[in-house]
């Protein structure tokens, strides 16, 4: 017994000195501290500094635990806000607004279809189907606008854009009804639009192209910026909280270990079970909460980058392709403006998939023909050698943009279908240029293998159901993973840290009781 005691006292002899010894290590101070130490060893239970030391160490541990608790609450709250905004608030709203753009462009495409087939009501998918699709899109557009109207209540600029869209849409509806009625009355053959029908339709189409579509697009961009800023803010907060929680946890564990050692030396106790429990609990809690917050940051990132960003880009690409589909009909409807429509088709095509054409010095903007060659080459390279040479634009940028399983195959399928769509457009234009307008119209609206509408539908399906579905799933999964465990941790984290703090208090109090 005496050997143990003497060993313990000699161990204690070095402890405080290394702790409290003055940096210059002057002989006077060290002599004084040795004297104090001897006194304290002789009358350990009377020393006031022991109580203070006990208070400081347990106080540090408790403060660090409270810090851990507070940080975890901050981190969890930010994670909850982020997951909620991106998963259920602004995120789906952006996609909804992007779908508004699609609904509008498809409405316009259906009207162009109805007018281009004229009195041949059964041509292609037929007039009835086009009218039905139009009504369906009109309802979708209305619903999206009503929702947008509620969401933009606190932003007067956005609110006004929504109002202008609602008004514009009503005007568009009137104009298209008038154009369809006039066309019906004229009972004209495919492609041979009477002047007054064309004028009315041009007015509707211009309203759509110059006012409605840009506003709908800008609205989606505006919402997108809300998602971006929310994501950046929340992601940073969650990461910072994870780090701060780890630091607080480490400080708490260090203080608890130090306290344990201190008690063992000063009070000659082996181990305090309360402290052991508190130390182990704190270590587990720290690893748990920091790890959980880090994984929340990852889920937010995955929802944003693998899910949201891609879904939005693909929705934009789909809407633009639909505008292009309508421009194909307009190209046939309005020979006077054929050059403008063709140019717009090229520019929209480049926004969807951009490939290098024209002169580098700006001497040439490139032609549709060059575009198709360059596109076919780029997609073939991707197909054969898996190299993304110079595909850019909304879909081009998606190549290699995600490591999701199945993404590479799905984007390649979309691009192959897009190339096929471009070839079918080439066939259609060649017919029209030879003067075979009727043949070109028949080809454009037919949904049989290889023909215009078929090619468009194939592309649209690969885009909307294949690739978009994949990223939508990734988005939903990431949000679900981000939500799971959030509530449990939010309840557990304060409860556990308070319990741990209670253990420390209990351990310290039972020692301090010896002073009373």
């Amino acid at each position, binding site marked *: 017994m005496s050997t143990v005691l003497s060993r313990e006292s000699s161990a204690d002899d070095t402890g405080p000195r290394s702790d409290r010894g003055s940096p210059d290590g002057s002989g006077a101070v060290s002599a004084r501290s040795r004297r104090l130490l001897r006194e304290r060893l002789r009358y350990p239970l009377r020393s006031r500094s022991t109580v203070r030391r006990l208070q400081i160490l347990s106080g540090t541990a408790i403060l660090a635990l409270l810090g851990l608790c*507070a*940080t975890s*609450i*901050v981190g969890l*709250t*930010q994670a909850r806000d982020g997951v909620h905004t991106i998963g259920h608030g602004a995120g789906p709203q952006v996609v909804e607004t992007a779908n508004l753009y699609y609904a509008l462009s498809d409405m316009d495409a259906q009207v162009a279809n109805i007018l281009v087939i004229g009195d041949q009501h059964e041509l292609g998918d037929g007039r009835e189907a086009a009218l039905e699709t139009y009504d369906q899109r009109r309802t979708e557009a209305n619903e999206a606008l009503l929702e947008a109207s509620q969401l933009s209540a606190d932003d007067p*600029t956005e609110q*006004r*854009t929504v109002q*202008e869209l609602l008004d514009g849409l009503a005007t568009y509806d009137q104009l298209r009804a008038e154009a369809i009625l006039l066309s019906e009355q004229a009972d004209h053959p495919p492609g041979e639009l009477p002047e007054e029908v064309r004028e009315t339709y041009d007015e509707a189409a211009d309203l759509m192209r*110059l*006012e409605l*579509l*840009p*506003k709908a*697009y*800008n609205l989606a*961009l*505006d919402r*997108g*910026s809300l998602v*971006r*800023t929310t994501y950046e803010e929340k992601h*940073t*907060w969650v990461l*910072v*909280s994870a*780090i*701060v929680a780890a630091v607080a946890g480490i400080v708490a564990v260090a203080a608890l270990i130090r306290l344990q050692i201190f008690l063992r030396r000063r009070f000659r106790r082996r181990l305090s079970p309360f402290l052991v429990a508190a130390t182990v609990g704190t270590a587990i809690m720290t690893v748990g909460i920091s790890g959980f917050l880090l994984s929340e940051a990852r889920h937010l990132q995955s929802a944003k980058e693998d899910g949201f960003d891609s879904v939005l880009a693909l929705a934009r690409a789909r809407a633009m392709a639909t505008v292009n589909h309508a421009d194909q009909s307009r190209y046939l409807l309005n020979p*006077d*403006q054929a*050059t*403008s429509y063709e*140019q*717009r088709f090229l*520019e929209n095509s*480049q926004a969807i998939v*951009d490939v290098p054409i024209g*002169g*580098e010095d*700006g*001497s*040439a*903007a*490139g*032609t549709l023909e060059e575009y198709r060659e360059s596109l076919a080459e780029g997609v073939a390279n991707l197909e054969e050698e898996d190299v993304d040479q110079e595909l*850019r*634009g909304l879909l081009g940028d998606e190549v290699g943009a995600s490591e999701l399983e199945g993404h590479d195959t799905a984007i390649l399928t979309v691009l192959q279908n897009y190339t096929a769509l471009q070839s079918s457009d080439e066939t259609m234009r060649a017919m029209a240029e030879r003067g075979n307008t009727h043949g070109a119209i028949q080809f454009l609206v037919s949904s049989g293998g290889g023909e215009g509408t078929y090619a468009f539908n194939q592309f649209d399906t690969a885009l909307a159901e294949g690739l978009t579905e994949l990223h939508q799933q990734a988005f939903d999964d990431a949000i679900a993973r981000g939500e799971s465990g959030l509530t449990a941790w939010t309840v557990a984290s304060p409860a556990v840290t308070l319990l741990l703090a209670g253990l420390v208090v209990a351990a310290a109090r039972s020692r301090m009781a010896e002073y009373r």
Partner: protein
Amino acid sequence: MRTRTLALPLAMTLLAATGCTAVAETGSVAGANSLTIGVKYDQPQLGLETGGSFEGFEVDVATYVADRLGVDPDDITWVGLDSADREDAIRNGDVDLVFATYSITQERKADVGFAGPYYVAHQDILVNAENTEVEDVTDLEGTRICQAQGSHSGTRIVEERGIDAELVEEDNFGDCINTALAEGQVQAVSTDDLILAGFLEENPEAFRFVNAPFTDERYGVGIDRDDIAGCEAVNKAITQMYQDGTAAELLQEWFGATDLDLVTSVPQFEGCG
């Protein structure tokens, strides 16, 4: 609220400790007290330097946007830019924003960011008022077309559209219109409609726009690529400029005397970042 007040100092401490100050915040045109803006100095009605000051549609648009960003007109420093210097001026930080008939293209987007466009101009054709034959670019077959030196607008018609026309070059578009076209040496001049309209002020009734645009030239606001918040703020200002009727007024003021079809609804934005 409580979590915010608690969390902010924590994060600030941590950010300060790792050396990441809020540079992104202060480096944005959103929240700036003063701005340096690049404009054209030789385009009548768009950006023209006269007696040390700049005037034109783009100067007015820039002033409006700056005002919406909270910058007083007195706190704007104007810089006249050559077309070739626009990217460097932005990249080197010599200017904060550029409003200088700056078409948004994929190539340029590799170097600089674009807010807007604030207007979509089109390559169009200008003919003499009495010429009623030309209705489309294809009607230029067999004509003489004037283009300014260094411009490719006529080349595009001949080479890309396959139109068999003869190209004539003058020093600038002003000479093309007010000399070559007015005197009948050429039948048509073609470039961005706003640029053409700018040279028409002296005698707008003598000429006619064909109004058959065959390209979209989206005039964007050049901005630092990384300044996404600034880009979004500029877009918001442009939306407001159209909503409150300022855009329509400015277009009317600078180009209203011509018979150009002016679009007074906000253009489709390129999107930031």
